[in-house]
């Protein structure tokens, strides 16, 4: 069956667009860590610096031993982290303060790895 030549560029555009549109199907959590507490609230942060598995692991480790957090789920794809927390023990401002703290580097300078871009409370 003869088809017009323009079918080729037309299909290219269609399938590239489809390829871009279906990407949310592959938004998998980068890390999912459960802590001991029982949470009653949820907050989602978009965090500058949360880029890959390595930074997500480092980010999650900042909350080891912090009381009041039930779980942290990070998505490097969307630079976001979802916290389920006990609102009687901790609040979003304190969570943001913890991940935005500065670290002392080998040369004596201080460096902040993560900073809050936005937050959404549920």
């Amino acid at each position: 069956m003869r088809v017009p030549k323009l079918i080729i560029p037309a299909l290219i555009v269609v399938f590239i667009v489809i390829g871009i549109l279906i990407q949310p199907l592959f938004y998998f959590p980068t890390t999912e860590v459960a802590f001991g507490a029982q949470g009653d609230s949820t907050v989602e942060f978009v965090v500058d610096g949360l880029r890959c598995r390595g930074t997500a692991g480092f980010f999650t480790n900042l909350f080891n031993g912090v009381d009041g957090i039930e779980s942290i789920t990070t998505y490097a794809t969307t630079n976001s982290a979802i916290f389920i927390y006990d609102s009687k023990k901790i609040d979003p401002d304190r969570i943001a303060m913890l991940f935005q703290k500065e670290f002392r580097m080998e040369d004596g300078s201080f460096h902040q790895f993560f900073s809050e871009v936005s937050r959404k409370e549920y």
Partner: protein
Amino acid sequence: MWDIGGRMNIRIIRFLSQATFLGIVVYLALGLGSRSFENYCPFGGVEALYTVFTERQFTCALAPLNLSILIGVVALTLLTKRSFCGWVCPLGAIAEWINKIGDKVWKKRPHLPRSADKYLRLLRYVVLAIVLYYTYTIGDLIFRGYDPFYIIFSGNGHETLGWISIGVLAVFAVLSFFQPMAFCRYFCPLAAFLDPFSKLGVVRISRNKETCTDCTLCNKVCHFGVEPMKLEKVTHRDCVNCLECVEVCPVKDCMQVKAF
């Protein structure tokens, strides 16, 4: 874009398509978009497949977009063969344009013997196997420094190999100058990955052997050395549906684009 008879000039449309996609990648490479140019490469999706299936994770520097674009490109290849290579791939476009400069320089272009060309094309499967084996076992994109696409658009940047990467680019340019689409024919792992899907491609070029005058013009313009004049249906895995052979054919309706 239109010739005297009112027909659309497909060569100009293809050039515009290649230039547009190259422009988009340059725009992203300059950091002007919200995503890295690497995330739009379908081969990144191939590199991500293993960790996505085993750990539901993406290797660093890869993203869901790599995989979703790969799915789009595979579906596209099942319909229109490797049209992605001929119409979209910025590296293919650069190789093709370097080769066009070669056309102006060479009075008589040196040609590889057909048997050598045929066996060298198998090299890309070796490249694909090596890249996937080490990427999957090491879990990092360790071949970035050897990838002309990454070297060009990162500006020989992060995780490239200095002079080695510049050497890779020089080899890419010289090969493209001598042999049409040399990198794509012999080394491109994405081409190797798409080959089986391309073989099944539904939209393909057909030659009417009754009206064909055996002028060989179609063979001469084929960048991938497919030799359409020897075929009735161009099912060759290397056909990228660039339609150069259809455009150059002097006999009306001898070369046509057909489905099935």
